[in-house]
């Protein structure tokens, strides 16, 4: 069972890398909006699986996307930060419930799940776009990119997650 879950995560990782680099990196809405949909990996990863493995897998996911899109290690940085802060966000969104053995996304409300996803997206975008430019003179540009890309990523993530969710996720 455990191995199955990890295998499933690795297959998702590969598919998300392809979706990101072959489709979503080339959307360019309004010339600059490219949703970072690989955030779904952090949303889908099993709750009680090995956390070190989770950080390592996130790093690999980010680094692969970086190699494809020539962004050195920006995606890797955003990915590990999201992975590292995920338990905190879960406690924040789902309360103490998530510590219990039988906890699944089934026991949570839609609003809780949406908040959780939104927070993951915000952290990812803040890290990615701040380090992408790394200059205070572009602060307005960074904020603009974070805001609009995050909105589009959120919409696409909701769409994709409802399309490809398995029973245990919902």
């Amino acid at each position, binding site marked *: 069972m455990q191995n199955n879950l990890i295998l499933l995560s690795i297959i998702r990782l590969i598919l998300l890398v*392809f979706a990101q*680099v*072959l489709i979503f*990196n*080339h959307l*360019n809405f309004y*010339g*600059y*909006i*490219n949703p970072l949909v690989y955030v779904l990996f952090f949303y889908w990863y099993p709750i009680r699986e090995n*956390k*070190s493995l989770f*950080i*390592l897998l996130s*790093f690999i996911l*980010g*680094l692969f996307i*970086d*190699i*494809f*899109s*020539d*962004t*050195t*290690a*920006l995606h*890797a*940085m955003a990915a*590990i*930060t999201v*992975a*590292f802060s995920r338990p905190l966000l879960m406690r924040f969104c789902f309360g103490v419930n998530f510590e219990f053995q039988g906890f699944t996304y089934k026991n949570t409300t839609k609003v809780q799940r949406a908040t959780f996803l939104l927070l993951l997206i915000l952290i990812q975008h803040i890290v990615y776009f701040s*380090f*992408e*430019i*790394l200059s205070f003179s*572009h602060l307005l*540009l960074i904020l603009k990119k974070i805001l609009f890309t995050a909105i589009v990523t959120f919409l696409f993530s909701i769409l994709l997650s409802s399309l490809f969710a398995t029973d245990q996720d919902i």
Partner: protein
Amino acid sequence: MQRIINFILNNRNTFLYVVLLVFSLGITIKSHSYHQSRYFNSTKWISGTIYGISHGITNYFNLKEENKRLVEENQQLREQVLNAPKEYLTDSTLNFEIVPAQIIKNMFASPRNYITLDKGEKHGIKQDMGVITPLGILGIVENTSNGFTVVQSILNTKSNINAKIKNTNYFGSLVWNAKDYHIVQLIDIPRSVPLVTGDTITTGAMSSIFPENIPIGTIKSFELGQNQSTYTIDVTLFNDMANVKNVYVIKNKARKEIIDLQKAVEDAK
């Protein structure tokens, strides 16, 4: 000792995170000021091959449009050849060689844009060669592997190319402020230069990467910079950077000689 090891084991996730973060930060910040990392770029076999396959499929959708563009360029070149004096084309004057290539990955939404081409070292492409399109300049080769090339686009905050106002000898540096992918900035043009909106900007003679007089764009607007002594000029690019397919990599045969000579002069000081 036991307690230190226990401490590390108990906080292994935090340690793992910090180690990976420092690693990523290191290579990212380094590539902001120096060349892009040699190891993490899309010339690698896996990314190149996958982009190649994807390009092979999507290529067919704009064959017609691309064909029309190439015929137009051919017509222009034919006219130039027919109207040029005969002795103009002897082998001894051919200083530049051209390697044609196709773009398999284009990007223009990031502040540091890189473009991947389907040709590499085995076709004779090396670092620091210029890349142009039928309409204007595209960028400079940054990294190569056996079969693929990554080009640092002119839409890159690291890019800095010598450019001048056509038919004059006033030259400055072409840079990009990361805001609009249609517009780049020409800086360091002295205040005394008479500027007119719509004038053409071309590459200058100060670099051994591009030949002189390759078109870049036209002046959109200009204003005095903060120091009140030089202009900052907004240049509208001739190229639509979002829609380029066929490009030419320029090999300057004299480049090595120029660089060796410059180095000899530096060393002699």
